[in-house]
């Protein structure tokens, strides 16, 4: 183990390099591009033995990833924003075909107007594609979650996405503990376990009449749900080599808090500071960080929010005509009536810990009674 100063993108590239990836297929898009540049340079220098298909679009990036995965390779791709949206059709396909592709997504706002800055509406719009979604809130998590994503995806036969906020995580340089040889006890060369095999010629994805289609979809739903237990199991294994423990939902602060600040991605780092600010004022506050968004960690969130008086969800995303997506999911799944949603930071707008603390106080004081959009003076 050594420490390198890395942004999230570089951290992901290092993890991919150490994950025995067979095929990379990718297309450039800001702020993801430096991941695939770094991978191209690893391959160019002979430090990584993988094929890199330089496709002509993200639609093809995911399509080529599917082919490579169906032939039994370990496959990685990366994208962001518009690129992820272009992939949408193929994301469904990869998940339906049970292909364990791993993708990094740099969360970026959606045009128009053009924006290259952080927002999670891109990946949350892919909520229903059947992909496992993991959210990193810093470079170390981005690095670690790539290894976990490969193991998880291959174990449950389902693709997995590691998301990190554009620039805030992808480009913020932080010390990252990078594995040496010890990682080989966690991840090794992929076993060839190909859907496509000339000795056993099956047709993948053939037409299914209704009474065949539905059971297959139930099976797919069970597959992705099984990722919850497998993640916990793998997380324990990962902790043994890394001393870092990952949970589907991470909590920090008072157990029976007056207020819980829920956040995903870089917002969680800010919310952590906000919890500390609130604690200084004698308010019992806790952070609830959503690491796994799909499959949805219902029980884990339920446990994390048990006995909490008020819940404030900070969403750096928006479902137009509805509100924050994570808030909606949590309130809906848990049947909670004490949840206030705060849409904030769209298109890379800074969200400060003081703003988060102010809003949380407002919720406790009863001044903030309904969902809100955090914009301008708080």
């Amino acid at each position, binding site marked *: 183990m050594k420490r390198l100063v890395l942004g999230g993108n570089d951290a992901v590239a290092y993890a991919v390099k150490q994950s025995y990836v067979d095929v990379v297929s990718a297309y450039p898009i800001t702020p993801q591009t430096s991941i695939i540049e770094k991978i191209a340079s690893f391959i160019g220098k002979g430090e990584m033995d993988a094929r890199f298909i330089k496709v002509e679009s993200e639609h*093809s990036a995911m399509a080529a990833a599917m082919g490579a995965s169906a032939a039994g*390779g370990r496959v990685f791709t990366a994208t962001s924003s518009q690129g992820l949206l272009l992939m949408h059709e193929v994301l469904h396909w990869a998940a339906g075909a049970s292909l364990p592709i791993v993708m990094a997504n740099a969360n970026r706002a959606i045009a128009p107007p053009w924006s290259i800055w952080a927002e999670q509406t891109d990946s949350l719009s892919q909520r229903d594609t059947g992909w496992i979604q993991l959210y990193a809130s810093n470079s170390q998590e981005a690095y670690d979650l790539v290894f976990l994503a490969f193991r998880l995806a291959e174990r449950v036969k389902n693709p997995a996405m590691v998301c990190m906020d554009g620039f805030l995580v992808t480009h913020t340089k932080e010390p990252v503990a990078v594995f040496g040889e010890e990682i080989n006890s966690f991840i090794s060369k992929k076993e060839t376990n190909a859907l496509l095999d000339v000795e056993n010629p099956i047709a993948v994805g053939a037409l299914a009449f209704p009474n065949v289609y539905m059971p297959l979809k139930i099976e797919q739903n069970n597959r992705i749900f099984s990722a919850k237990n497998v993640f916990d199991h793998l997380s324990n294994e990962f902790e043994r080599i890394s001393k870092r423990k990952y949970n589907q939902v991470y909590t920090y602060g008072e157990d029976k808090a007056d207020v819980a600040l829920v956040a995903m991605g870089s917002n969680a780092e800010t919310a952590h500071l906000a919890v500390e600010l609130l604690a200084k004022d004698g308010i019992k506050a806790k952070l609830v960080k959503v690491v796994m968004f799909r499959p949805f960690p219902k029980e884990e969130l339920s446990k994390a929010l048990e006995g909490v008086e008020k819940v404030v969800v900070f969403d750096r995303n928006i479902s137009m005509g509805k509100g924050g997506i994570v808030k909606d999911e949590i309130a809906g799944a848990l049947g909670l009536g004490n949840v206030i949603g705060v849409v904030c930071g769209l298109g890379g707008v800074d969200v400060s810990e003081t703003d988060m603390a102010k809003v949380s106080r407002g919720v406790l004081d009863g001044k903030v009674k309904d969902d809100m959009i955090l914009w301008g003076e708080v």
Partner: protein
Amino acid sequence: MSIPKQEIMQSNHLACPGCGAALAMRLALKALGKNTMVVIPACCWTIINGTHGNNFAGVPVFHTAFATTAAVAAGIKATLEKQGKDDITVMGWAGDGGTFDIGLQALSGAAERNDDIIYVCYDNEAYMNTGIQRSSATPIGAETTTTPSPTVKDRPKKDLMEIVAAHDVPYIASATISYPNDLIKKFEKAKSKRGFKLIHIFSPCPPGHKFPENKTIEISKLAVETGVFLLYEIEDGKYKINKKPKFRELDDYLNAQGRFRNTPEEQREVLKEFIRKRWEKLLIKAENFG
């Protein structure tokens, strides 16, 4: 040469009677053998290959999204190369809609990268699987459900061979099922060459072109004899005409198919002129770059 005896594709498939595309696959797989993997997007072959649990092609098939054939095939090949399985041929098998229209970008990408795949377009000149809508492969003058008479197609068919030729790939060929020896020879050649290969197959469609189901071979032959469909190859940039058309009366071809029943006389003339010019251009290329 003779047609290989081995049958890889199975009978009882779900093609319409007289389907040119079913015969095309049967012949293609005779040439390529069982070490072949096939990528099939939305097209008639989505149905022909059978419902879940079936696989009439007899080799591994990946059914994929409409626009993705060439990219998926490239991905499969990349893994096979990494695994050292160089003896497996990867074939994309798409209709004209999936090739000339929605799949053209992915096709161009794979051709430009020179990915080691065989891309086959079985061209029945319209969206037949959805019920005969015009594609950019539909010939001028043809009636479809989206070009009903009197608004028959008024633009010429896209030139797929020349589009792919512009990518400077090792092998491009046209073929049709009424010349099975020629077709098989081309698949064998494609299999033997590294890099991107395109085979453009003219594939008559009884319900779509509106002719009796026992006339498929005849229509295929007429297309070649009238000069509607030219049989040629572009191997490493060198043009070779495989069959000089007899230039039979175009009306023999048009009148045998209901889709041209409402083609106005002036459009028939435009089509004749189009065929003449295309042949002249091909001759010049064959003479200068043969």
